[in-house]
């Protein structure tokens, strides 16, 4: 593994030569990168002109690399970001560096998690971060490049390239994993408001999540029955959250959200219902899966095989957002468990 970071390159260096050079040194996710020339990096830094270029935004394990604004901007250029995306990327870097996210073990674990960036607030619309149909898929520059830039920061500054990242099977979201919440289709308060921010503030939430799992419910319209379908998908043996809880994510489809709200349910009702229903009996869970960590819920009576084990320690630990296109599907994103929790961080905007 190389200790150095990607350098600036001369404008006259060929695209192919720069890409070969960077790839050979591991400064890459495997896709071609945009050569980080001095001019491009300077333009990128203008996206956060109120911050000093050498200011350290975070320290990235396992190499404990110093993520200065300049170093982050280099990776943002490489990923194809526009300068106005930089504040979102910086907030995401700050968020993954918070202790409760557990970046040191997320960078090196065998688990297949990737930092999902959820963007809330007005900036999501301004940057056209997709929150609707196909939000996890290709086609939107902001989604594609902000998530990719965070991955390049983790590789190039943190040192978590393929020789160090021990994820047993990896995860397509390790290329990029960035979405926004569809606040206009959300009948309740959006995620950042639930977490104490103002609706007009822009916020990133990062959560180390597995790949999204689609849950189809085209027939049932009663919220309780929709929850029963979800609960069956979510509390499956082998899902880490059943053994050590944490902050898994439910991405409610817009039609499901509309049906549930029309029946008079609040978002908290959804969380409460799934806290109660997405469970398996202790007798089935106790000798399989993974070890039950120190944060395993106290209320699970381990002397009673019939005691029910939830996927979250409390209703509000289930992250519920509304997003996606038309149709009768929602998505469930398991996480590693309580050793890695989600973090929300205010996005700094001009002069803030």
């Amino acid at each position, binding site marked *: *593994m190389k*200790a150095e970071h990607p350098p600036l390159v001369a404008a006259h260096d060929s695209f192919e030569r720069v890409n070969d050079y960077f*790839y*050979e040194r*591991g400064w890459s996710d495997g896709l071609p990168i945009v050569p980080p020339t001095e001019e491009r990096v300077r333009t990128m830094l203008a996206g956060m002109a109120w911050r000093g270029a050498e200011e350290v935004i975070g320290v990235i*394990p*396992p*190499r*404990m690399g110093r993520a200065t604004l300049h170093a982050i901007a280099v990776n943002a250029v490489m990923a194809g970001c526009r300068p106005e995306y930089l504040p979102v990327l910086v907030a995401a870097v700050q968020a993954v560096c918070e202790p409760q996210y557990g970046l*040191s073990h997320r960078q*090196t674990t065998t688990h297949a998690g990737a930092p999902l960036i959820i963007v809330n607030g007005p900036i999501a619309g301004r940057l056209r971060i997709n929150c609707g149909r196909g939000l996890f898929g290709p086609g939107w520059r902001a989604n594609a490049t902000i998530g990719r830039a965070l991955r390049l920061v983790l590789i190039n500054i943190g*040192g978590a390239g*393929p*020789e*160090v990242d*021990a994820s047993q099977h990896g995860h397509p979201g390790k290329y990029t994993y960035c979405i926004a919440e569809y606040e206009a289709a959300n009948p309740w308060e959006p995620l950042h408001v639930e977490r104490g921010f103002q609706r007009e503030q822009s916020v990133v939430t990062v959560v180390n999540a597995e790949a999204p799992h689609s849950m189809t419910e085209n027939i049932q319209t009663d919220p309780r029955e929709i929850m029963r379908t979800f609960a069956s998908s979510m509390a499956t043996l082998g899902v880490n959250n059943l053994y050590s809880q944490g902050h898994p994510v439910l991405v409610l489809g817009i039609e499901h959200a509309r049906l549930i709200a029309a029946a008079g349910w609040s978002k908290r009702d959804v969380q409460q219902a799934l806290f109660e229903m997405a469970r398996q009996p202790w007798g089935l869970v106790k000798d399989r899966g993974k070890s039950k960590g120190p944060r395993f819920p106290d209320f699970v009576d381990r002397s009673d095989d019939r005691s029910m084990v939830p996927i979250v320690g409390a209703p509000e630990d289930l992250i519920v957002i509304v997003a996606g296109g038309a149709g009768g599907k929602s998505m469930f994103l398991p996480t590693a468990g309580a050793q890695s929790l989600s973090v929300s961080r205010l996005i700094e905007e001009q002069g803030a």
Partner: protein
Amino acid sequence: MISTAFAPLARVVAEGIGQSSLPIVVVPHPVADRDLELVRSRGAEIAADCVRVLTTPAGDLEREFGNKRYPLPAAVMPR
């Protein structure tokens, strides 16, 4: 102490915290086995080495471990 599958990673972590000559004792992977006898035998195999690195002068350890590299597991494909 680390298993062979994670030894190169341990080296990076050690360097990251400024302990580039940290002695690393390597045990065959995996150690998280349910066969307690196997786990005990793995421990017994490296016990003497653990004692040795804990009782060896720092200068000697630096010479032994300062530039030591560990092979990547077979499942890591070369680029």
